[in-house]
C-alpha cells in the first residue's frame, strides 16, 4: 500500500484506476453481454424464425410485464430487502380492475385504479417492513398468501372477462407500427432508463447503495433508511399495478391464479443480473441484460417447441452456473496465487 500522494498527479492515479467494485460489475456485465450474444447466435442457428421483427416483437410481450416489476425488485434486493408478494399484488390489482370494469369505469380510470391499488398493497408491505421493522422475506411471504387469498375469496368461482376493447388495447397495442414495439415493452424500456439514471447518476441511487451496504452507517449519515424502504415497497407495488394493468388488458381476463409463480421468475431476472442478496451490489444495465438473456433463451427454446418446464430447467441451470462461475474462478485464482508463491 503506497502513501496516498497529495500532489497534483493523484488526479491521474485516480482517473487511471477504476473502483474495484465497479471493475467487478463491469466484468459481470461483460459476461452477460457475451451470454446474450451467444444466446442470440444459437437461436438464429436453431430456428429460422428467430430473426423476424414480428416474432421478436411478440416475444417481448411475454416478459415485459415481469421485466417492469424486476426494476423495483432490483432496488429492493439492492437494499437488502425482497418482495415475494409481487405476483399476488398483480392478482389483487387485476381483481380491482375487474370489479371497476364491471361497474363500467372508463379505461383510463381502470389504469389509475390499478396503479392506486398496487401502490396501496406496496404501502402495506412497506409499513410492516419499515414501520414495524419486520424482515421483508417473512412479511411478503405472508402478504403473498393474503393478497392472493383476497383475490380468491372475492372471485370465488368466477373469472372477470368482459373488458372494454379500449382497455384491452393498453396491453395489446403497439407504440409504433414499424417496427412493432408493444406498449408494454416500450414502457419497460422507458422505465429501465429512468431507473438506471436514478440509481447510477443521482444521490438517491447512491443512498440506496449505502443502505444496501451498511444500513446503520447510512442512517448515522443522515439518510432516512426507513422512509427509503417504505418508498421502495410502494414503488414495487405501483409497478406491480402497472404490470397488472398491462397483463389484464393483454389477456382480457382476471382469474385468481393470474401471474402464478411470477415472483420466482422476477427474482431470477434480478439475481442473474448480478444483484446480490447480501445487498449493495448490482446494476440496472445488468438486470436489463439478464432480462434480455432470459427472454431470448425462453423464446428460442419455445420456437423449437421445448416444453415450458424444459426451458425452466435450462434457466435454472444457467442461473446456478452464472452465479457459481465467478465464485469458482475466484477460488481457483486464489488457489493458483497461493500455490505459486
Amino acid at each position, binding site marked *: *500500500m503506497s502513501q496516498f500522494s497529495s500532489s497534483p498527479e493523484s488526479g491521474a492515479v485516480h482517473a487511471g484506476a477504476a473502483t474495484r467494485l465497479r471493475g467487478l460489475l463491469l466484468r459481470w456485465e461483460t459476461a452477460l453481454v457475451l451470454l446474450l450474444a451467444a444466446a442470440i447466435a444459437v437461436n438464429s442457428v436453431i430456428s429460422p424464425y428467430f430473426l423476424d421483427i414480428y416474432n421478436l416483437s411478440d416475444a417481448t410481450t411475454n416478459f415485459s410485464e415481469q421485466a417492469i416489476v424486476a426494476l423495483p425488485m432490483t432496488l429492493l434486493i439492492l437494499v437488502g430487502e425482497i418482495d415475494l408478494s409481487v405476483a399476488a399484488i398483480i392478482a389483487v390489482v387485476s381483481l380491482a380492475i375487474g370489479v371497476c370494469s364491471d361497474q363500467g369505469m372508463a379505461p383510463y380510470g381502470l389504469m389509475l385504479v390499478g396503479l392506486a391499488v398496487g401502490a396501496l398493497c406496496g404501502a402495506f408491505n412497506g409499513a410492516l417492513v419499515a414501520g414495524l421493522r419486520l424482515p421483508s422475506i417473512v412479511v411478503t411471504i405472508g402478504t403473498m398468501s393474503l393478497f392472493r387469498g383476497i383475490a380468491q375469496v372475492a372471485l370465488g368461482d368466477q373469472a372477470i372477462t368482459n373488458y372494454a376493447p379500449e382497455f384491452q388495447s393498453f396491453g395489446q397495442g403497439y407504440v409504433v407500427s414499424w417496427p412493432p414495439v408493444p406498449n408494454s415493452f416500450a414502457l419497460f424500456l422507458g422505465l429501465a432508463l429512468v431507473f438506471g439514471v436514478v440509481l447510477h447518476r443521482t*444521490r438517491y441511487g447512491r443512498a440506496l447503495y449505502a443502505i444496501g*451496504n451498511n444500513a446503520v452507517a447510512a442512517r448515522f449519515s443522515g*439518510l*432516512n433508511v426507513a422512509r427509503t424502504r417504505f418508498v421502495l415497497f410502494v414503488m414495487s407495488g405501483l409497478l406491480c399495478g402497472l404490470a397488472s394493468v398491462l397483463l389484464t388488458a393483454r389477456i382480457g381476463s382476471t382469474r385468481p391464479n393470474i401471474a402464478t409463480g411470477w415472483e420466482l421468475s422476477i427474482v431470477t431476472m434480478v439475481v442473474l443480473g448480478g444483484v446480490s442478496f447480501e445487498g*449493495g451490489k448490482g446494476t440496472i444495465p445488468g438486470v436489463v441484460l439478464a432480462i434480455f438473456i432470459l427472454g431470448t433463451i425462453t423464446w428460442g427454446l419455445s420456437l423449437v417447441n421445448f416444453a415450458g418446464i424444459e426451458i425452466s430447467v435450462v434457466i435454472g441451470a444457467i442461473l446456478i452456473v452464472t452465479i457459481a462461475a465467478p465464485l469458482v474462478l475466484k477460488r481457483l485464482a486464489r488457489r493458483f496465487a497461493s500455490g505459486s508463491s
Partner: protein
Amino acid sequence: MTIEPMVDSNEPPVLALSGVCKRFPGMTVLQGVGFTLRRGEVTALIGENGAGKSTLVKILTGIYGLDEGEICVGGQSVHFASARAAWAAGITAIHQEPVMFDELSVAENVFMGHMSVTGAGLVDWRGMQDRTNEILHLLEAGFSATTPLKLLGVAEKHLVEIARALSHDSRVVIMDEPTAALSTREVDDLIRIVGRLKAQGRAILFISHKFEEIFRIADRWVCLRDGRQVGSGAIADVTSADLVKLMVGRSIGNVFPTRETAVGEPTLQVDGLSNATEFADLSFVLHKGEILGLYGLVGSGRSEALQALFGLSRPTRGVIRIDGKVVAIHSPADAIAAGLAYVPEDRQTQGAVLAFSIVENVTLASLRRHSSGAFLMRDRETATARSVAERFAVKARNLDQALGDLSGGNQQKVVIGKWIATNPRILILDEPTKGIDIGSKAAVHAFMAELTAAGVAIILISSELPEVMGMSDSILVMHEGRVVRRLTRAEATPELIVTAAAGTLESNVA
C-alpha cells in the same frame, strides 16, 4: 494484588514461534516473527493497527494457516488445521468484540465446539452446566450457566469468554484488546482475573493499545511494526516512550496538541434531555471553539444521550437550542441541517461503508451539496474527498480504493472527513480514537485543535482519561444516565473524574 509469577526458566516455553510468515495475495502481512511465551507470564503484544497483531492471533487460533515458520507448543512443533486443533493444543483467545451466541445459554457459549457427551452420545447438559457454574464461581460472576447470553452486558460477556478459555484448561490465553469496550472499574476486574490466570501458571498474550494497562500487568513485551517484529524484552527494562518509538518508528513528542483556549459565545444549549430508561436531565452549554469532554463508564448513557441529541432516537423530554433558537431534531437529517455532526463509536458498523470508495464515503452525509438537482457531480465529490485525504494524510492507493482495504486508523480519518464535509458547527466525537494506532490518534487530536481554532464546537466522548483531560476545556462526568459532575480543565484530576463516574453507590453496570 501481589501474586508472584511462577516462572521456572528450565521448563521449555509453553509456546514458541519462530520465523512466522504470512502472505495474502499481493502483500506480506507477517514476516520473521518469533517469540516465546512462558508459564505464568503475561506477554504484551504491541503495535500500531495494521502491524499484523490480529493476523498473528488468527494464526495462533487456527483460523489462518501460516506460510513459513514454526509454532512449537511445549517444545513440540504443531500445525493448526482449524480452531479446534488450536484448542486441542491448549490455546484459546478472547477476542476484542465478544464472539458469542446471543440465543444460547452461558453454558453452551462456554462449551460450544467441545461439548461433553454422555455414554449414549448425547450432550451432557448436566455436567456441562455444573462445570460452567464452577468456573463462573471461580470468576465471581453474578450469573449462572443457564442464563441466556442475550441478557448479559459487554463486561459479563468477556467473563463468559474467559470462562470458555478456562473450560479448555488452556495453557495459553490470548487476549485481543479485551479492555477496549470496558470501563475503568471493569478493567480493574479484568486485570485481577489475569493475575489469577497467571498464578495458575497459564501463559498470557495480552494485546492492548493502552500503555497504562500494559505496565500494570505485563512481564514481557513483543512489538510488531508493518508485519515485522521490531523488538522484545522485559517490561521492567523499558519506558512507554521507548515502546511508542518502536511502534511508530519515530518518537512522538507531546501526545496532545496545545490549544489556545479561545472559547466564544454559546452555540448549543441542551436543557433537560431525557428518555425513559437510559439518560435523564442532561443539560449543558457548548460554546464556539470549545471542547466539552463527556466521560462515563460504558453504559452510563453518554452515547445514548448524544445519539438522541443527533436525532437517532426520540428523547421523551428536553429542549435543544442552537444559537439561541429552539430546534426540533427528529432525524439525523434534521441534525445535519442544524449544523451538527456525529462521528459514531463503532466505526465498522456505524461509521463506514466498507464497500464504498473513499470518495463515496466522504460525501455520504452531504450528498445534496455534491449534486446538482438530483444528479451527483463526480468532480465536486472528488474535490471534497481529495481535500479530506490531504488534510488527514490518508494512506491509500487512490481515492477510489474501497474503504475496507484501508487500515482502521485511515478508515477513521475518512469517517471523520465525511462529517467535516458537512461543514458542521458542532461536532460530536464518540470515542474517536478507540482502537486506532498512535499516529492516527495524534492526527485526530491535531485536527480537533485545528477545528476549534476555526470556531467549531466539539463534544468529545471518551473512556480514555488522558484523552478527556488532555483535550477538553470542560468535562461532564456521567453516571447511571445523569451528569454527576461538571469540571473545568483546571479542576479536573483523574481521581475526581473516576470517583464521580463510579458513583457513590456500589454500582453494577450490566
